[in-house]
């Protein structure tokens, strides 16, 4: 009995000790809402990085890290702000992986993260507006800005010798940001956008929208929408009325659903989405499969990288205070230093502990530029014989 009491007391003490050093990371994603199918694999990516660091035991003198989830609803700014506020003030997290969609991320950043001095690294918010936002050095993203994607799209069209296109975009921060940055880049390089028109998601019939686009004309129709939503309706209506038969698909459209539903009907259409070539993605794929989630799903690698960057920066700064380690994020992400691939986090922590430098490459070939966003590498695809083929990387 005495032994038992002693053991219980000891465990209680140990637990108390462990809790004192516990570091919490908030995962702020749209677990509900229009992208709810992507968020579980994104959260799993972030948690994979956390458990990898925990297993290595090299983090901050053996401190353990745990994660807390917060829901943003993807399009619900007030929910996002409330969740971020809860993570920061009630759960007392030391860093946030998130938010997920551009509008909601902006709201959470401005109303919760900046007032409270919290670091946010978004894996998936791609609106160009976030590049110029006043962030006190607290906001980073492991995904590229759509301004970059707009430029890539203009390059692809120019290389294919296409001079006139019509653009339709889904009416939200993502669609409008991408369409506008593309139009600016394309017109600068001498192309012509005949019409840049919004479409609403969730309608039964897009023949009116397509009618206007067809009237404006163009060799190719650029569909900056969602494949499960209005994007599919636009393609259907365009094919039905014979208005367009070649399309350009940005990242929101590229998926297996697109290939399955339209593969044979959009021969010669092309597009691009953020994706890196090399060892990092391959290695992450293996690790993700072993951990039991789908690592190739969009933004899952970026989530792993976002969590890793926060933890490495903490280690480099020797502090979990966001206002201290925020200056280290760019250092650990970029050269000089030893290249760090997924699975090497333990090694990286050791190097940082010994006062060395690391250059985090990670699952999505992270290279942070400008205001702390990924430079971005894109995979260009084309439809041949009903299949989506990789043309190359840009």
């Amino acid at each position, binding site marked *: 009995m005495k032994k038992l009491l002693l053991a219980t007391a000891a465990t209680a003490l140990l637990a108390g000790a462990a809790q004192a050093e516990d570091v919490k990371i908030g995962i702020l994603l749209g677990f509900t809402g229009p992208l709810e199918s992507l968020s579980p694999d994104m959260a799993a990516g972030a948690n994979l990085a956390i458990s990898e660091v925990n297993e290595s035991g090299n983090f901050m003198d053996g401190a353990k890290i745990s994660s807390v989830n917060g829901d943003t609803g993807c399009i619900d700014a007030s929910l996002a702000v409330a969740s971020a506020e809860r993570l920061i003030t009630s759960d007392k997290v030391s860093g946030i992986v998130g938010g997920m969609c551009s509008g909601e991320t902006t709201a959470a950043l401005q109303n919760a993260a900046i007032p409270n001095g919290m670091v946010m690294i978004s894996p998936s918010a791609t609106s160009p507006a976030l590049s110029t936002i006043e962030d006190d050095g607290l906001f980073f993203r492991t995904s590229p800005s759509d301004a970059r994607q707009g430029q890539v799209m203009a390059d692809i069209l120019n290389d294919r010798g296409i001079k006139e296109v019509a653009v339709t975009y889904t009416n939200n921060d993502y669609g409008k940001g991408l369409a506008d940055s593309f139009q600016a880049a394309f017109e600068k390089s001498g192309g012509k956008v005949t019409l840049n*028109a919004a*479409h609403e998601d969730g*309608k039964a*019939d897009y023949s009116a929208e397509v*009618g*206007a686009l067809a*009237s404006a004309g163009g060799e190719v129709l650029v569909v900056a929408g969602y494949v499960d939503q209005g994007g599919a*309706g636009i393609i259907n209506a365009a094919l039905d009325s*014979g208005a367009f038969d070649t399309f350009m698909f940005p990242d929101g459209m590229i998926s297996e659903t697109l290939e399955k539903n339209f593969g044979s009907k959009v021969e010669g259409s092309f597009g691009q989405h953020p994706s890196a070539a090399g060892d990092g993605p391959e290695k992450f794929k293996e690790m993700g499969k072993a951990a039991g989630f789908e690592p190739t799903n969009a933004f899952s690698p970026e989530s792993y990288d976002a969590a890793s960057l926060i933890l490495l920066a903490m280690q480099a700064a020797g502090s979990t205070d966001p206002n201290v380690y925020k200056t280290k994020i760019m250092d650990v992400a970029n050269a000089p230093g030893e290249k760090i691939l997924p699975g090497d986090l333990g090694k990286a922590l050791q190097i940082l502990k010994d006062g060395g430098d690391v250059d985090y490459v990670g699952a999505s070939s992270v290279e942070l530029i400008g205001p702390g966003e990924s430079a971005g590498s894109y995979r260009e695809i084309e439809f041949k014989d009903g299949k989506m083929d990789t043309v190359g990387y840009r």
Partner: protein
Amino acid sequence: MDLLNAIVALSNFVLVPAIAYGSQLALGALGVTLIYGILRFSNFAHGDTMAFGTMVTILVTWWMQSAGISLGPLPTALLALPFGMLGCIALLLVTDRLVYRFYREQKAKPVILVIVSMGVMFILNGLVRFIIGPDDQRFADGERFIITARDFKQMTGLEEGLAIKTTQALTVVTAVLVVALLFWFLNRTRTGKSMRAYSDNEDLALLSGINPERVVMYTWMIVAALATVAGVLYGLDKSFKPFTYFQLLLPIFAAAIVGGLGSPIGAIAGGFIIAFSEVTITYAWKKVLGHALPESLAPDGLVQLLSTDYKFAVSFVILLIVLLFRPTGLFKGKSV
């Protein structure tokens, strides 16, 4: 200048879609107008009634597809349509027994019945989402096109293509048949005549021995059949999603009111007026004008009066104008 291309482009993007859409609206508006004429209230649950009938049809269609039953080039949904109608009739009769009859016996004012119908609307809304879910459902099968834009271009050598979908042709043919049947029923059969009598003057009809409960029952049955046909045709032509059916309420009511509530002919005319206004006002005329006008006059801009986002605003504006200047509608229905 090329009139032929202009006509083809106009047909492809304006005439064909507007005629199909107009037929769907007309069928929906007929249901609304019948309820208004005979039961004397505006039924806000009509959009969701359409969704319910369509849902039953879709479920039966899926079952038939899995059992290998098909109509060849025509959509299987046509075979399933009678089952959808039966399901919808059952639903409306049950609703009438449980809800509307109580208020009818109380001699409730029309405005109370309108509120009641909103309650029914919310319940049907939930019911449909509960059974089939809130997502898009596609159930069209068979041949998609009578003629595709590409074939048309090859056949005629014209620059513009004309596509006619099977569902568009089917919509128009079915609508004509259903309307003919309805008018024959209302004008030639005993039950139809008693319905019209009841609509014209309730007390006189009661005095001449017409059983009001029978009239009400037949009305619900016809409305259910009309709503199901309208919903299935719309779903085949576009796609089925409970929320869009709820949104259809506005153009349908606009159509019924423009034509004159209580007037079946008005409902049909109203359906086409709303459909053509929506499509022509939001259409970008650049292509058609470019073909039709001499080169020097061809427009540079899109020549689009309103962006397509304002489609519903068009029905709203027409509704307001009619209510302001001619509250009884074009065909002298009852004033609202």
